[in-house]
């Protein structure tokens, strides 16, 4: 039928036109409008935009809309103060590492981007990042302005390759309602392992047939377990990450203490109560105490606003205090063509004013030493507990070039103890052996 042929060719041409016209139009040089979920604030300011504008491409993983709004408000402030620099924000909403690795391999990576502590060393070692020492000197930024453990985490081979933008540690979140019901005193910063165990036992006694309550949550999570090893006087890896110490006495002792909560039925893993994350279990009141990071605070505010809770610093073990640092840096690509402008952006985003804004939003903790004594932390004991965790023998969440294998093996060791009742010593020995195999393969 002729008409069908005509229709087909029309559709074909239409499709081609659609594609051609659907391309991206160049971004106009106007500052982005900041928004919050509750109301849209449109701020406009008349600014002289010089004819020559430098474009800085900035990228990171996309957090929730409220956190994005915070970042965009900071970028807006920056663009007002620096009209000659246009910042293109290119958030990555999916697998960040996959997108970054692809971009780096293809040579199309952005100028400024997040680098998580987990793979910071890989990037620095392979010459992906620009060393920032000279740029820092040009604006009078010194290393001691930032918390030492964080600055060291992003220093490689004596040079600084990233400015820590925020950080988190683990805190002991406790359910005030359940503590009151059990007649227990709230946890203090002076708590020890014994206090933790006793409290868990007493709190588990609160459960009845319909609503089980567990004192503590001990998931098979490599992002939680290591603090117990540290608190038992041990380490996960040796100093230069060439070998693991997971089969040491201290590590085995820590694993025994940790898994005993579930074994003695005074603790549970999220799967036992049908959940995927202990944060939800805590919010539902099925677990009285969890070790979680500061991100649990905004989660509880939005999803479980009725829960009365507090946060204390982690209890000490036989070997003293121990904690882990989760942190991310702003870094600049080695291949950037706009190093000075990029540095201006990084410096602005991590200066005291910006970090105070971030702190007061409640989403993240600042990395500047000067803010340790800020009013916000004085008035928010929960956030202060997380912040001060950085001073409790806190090690960065990084285990060297075989780091992902270390995390995998730790998780599997705990899973084997839980799911297959493997003896703790054997499980840790098996994990250590596998890690050594993985390290050997890196040669």
């Amino acid at each position, binding site marked *: *039928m*002729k008409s*069908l*042929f005509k229709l*087909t060719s029309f*559709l*074909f041409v*239409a*499709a*081609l036109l*659609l*594609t*051609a016209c*659907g*391309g*991206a139009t160049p*971004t106009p040089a106007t500052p982005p*409008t900041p*928004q919050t*979920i509750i109301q*849209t604030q449109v701020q406009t300011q008349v600014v002289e935009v010089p004819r020559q504008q430098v474009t800085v*491409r900035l*990228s990171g*993983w*996309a*957090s*929730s*809309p409220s*956190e*994005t709004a915070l970042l965009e408000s900071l970028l807006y402030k920056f663009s007002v103060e620096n009209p000659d620099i246009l910042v*293109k*924000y*290119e*958030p*990555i*909403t*999916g*697998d960040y590492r996959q*997108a970054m690795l*692809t*971009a780096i*391999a*293809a*040579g*199309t990576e952005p100028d400024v981007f997040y680098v998580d502590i987990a793979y910071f060393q890989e990037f620095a070692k392979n010459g992906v990042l620009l060393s920032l020492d000279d740029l820092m000197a040009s604006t009078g930024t010194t290393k001691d302005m930032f918390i030492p453990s964080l600055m060291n985490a992003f220093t490689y081979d004596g040079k600084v390759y990233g400015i820590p933008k925020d950080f988190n540690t683990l805190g002991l979140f406790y359910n005030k309602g359940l503590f009151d019901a059990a007649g227990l005193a709230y946890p203090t910063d002076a708590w020890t392992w014994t206090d933790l165990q006793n409290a868990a036992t007493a709190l588990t006694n609160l459960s009845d047939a319909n609503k089980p309550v567990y004192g503590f949550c001990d998931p098979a999570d490599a992002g939680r377990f290591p603090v117990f090893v540290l608190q038992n006087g041990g380490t996960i890896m040796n100093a230069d990450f060439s070998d693991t110490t997971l089969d040491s006495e201290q590590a085995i002792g820590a694993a025994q203490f940790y898994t005993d909560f579930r074994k003695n039925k005074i603790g549970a893993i999220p799967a036992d109560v049908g959940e995927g*994350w202990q*944060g*939800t279990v805590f*919010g*539902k009141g099925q677990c009285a105490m969890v070790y979680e*990071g500061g*991100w*649990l605070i905004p*989660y509880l505010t*939005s*999803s*479980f*606003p*009725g829960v009365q809770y507090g946060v204390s610093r982690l209890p000490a073990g036989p070997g003293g205090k121990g904690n882990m640092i989760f942190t991310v840096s702003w870094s600049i690509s080695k291949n950037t063509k706009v190093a000075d402008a990029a540095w201006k952006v990084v410096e602005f985003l991590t200066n005291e004013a910006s970090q105070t804004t971030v702190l007061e939003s409640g989403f993240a903790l600042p990395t500047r030493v000067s803010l340790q004594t800020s009013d916000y932390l004085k008035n928010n004991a929960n956030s202060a507990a997380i912040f001060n965790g950085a001073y409790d023998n806190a090690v960065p969440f990084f285990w060297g070039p075989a780091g992902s294998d270390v995390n995998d093996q730790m998780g599997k060791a705990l899973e084997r103890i839980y799911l297959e009742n493997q003896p703790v010593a054997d499980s840790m020995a098996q994990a250590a052996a596998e890690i050594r195999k993985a390290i050997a393969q890196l040669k």
Partner: protein
Amino acid sequence: MATASQLLPENTFRNRFLLAWERIKTPVFYFLLFFWAILCLAPLYFTLVFSLKPVANAYTPPIWFPIPFTLDNFRTVLQSFDLFPRWILNSMIISLSVTLLRVLFCSMAGYAFARIEFRGKKFLFNALLISMMMPGIVTLIPKFLVIGPGFIKGGLHIGSLVLPTGFNLIDKLGGVVLPSFVDAFGVFMMTQYYKSFPKELEEAAIIDGTNRWGIFFRIVLPISQTQLLTLGLLTFQGEWNNFMLPLLILRSPQNFTLPIGLQWFRGEYYTLYSTVLAGSLFNTLPILILFFLFQRYIIQSIATTGSKEG
């Protein structure tokens, strides 16, 4: 001469089974269909319940009904990003272009593989099958290179010429359409459909002297409406939900497709499922609407073409 007993069907087990089957066939089919239908509706139902409850009540009972009821989650999804309508538009443009182009080109290639004898056909068809067997994860980077900067940095230098080795379509919708406008699965599917078509129709036209183009566009294409619609629907759905490669290609938020934009609601450490599920409904709805519309055309085409006289 046949006796009466020879005319009746034998009273074997087989025939008794078949008689029984004819009688209970309909209720059995209905039961099967209803059972499977409930299984299929469950996810959508739970999505609705979850999206219609406030975030703070997501985990409080009852879980079967949305009490308390709220439309806040949908409001959040629509208002958090003023680019939301733009994302829907981008997804529409990409999915429609790819669907139209793919249906046309895959049916053409399918017909050629099924009916036209050309040299190297077997070899090329095998190459087509093999091309589907390589997992997509390792082809992400080379595809990205070809769509964008090119596999030789700075271009291929021949004498004083610099030839680009990539299409330079990063951050453009065309960059998502280009690698998808024809697809091995689609060609394979159309080839198999056309292989099972009755040849008699075309043979009459060939004797009449019509050339291949005429046969294809005037005879074969109209008859294969059902298959074209099926391919179109599957293509639209696949392209709408295509995530991995567009995530790498599209950089500026205003060029995002809807699935990429919806992922923005997933947090770094935790996810507010009420919002995410509400957002996913926006993603599912266009495809469902299209499906419901096209369904009628499929039924219509059967009614008009009727039984194909073999």
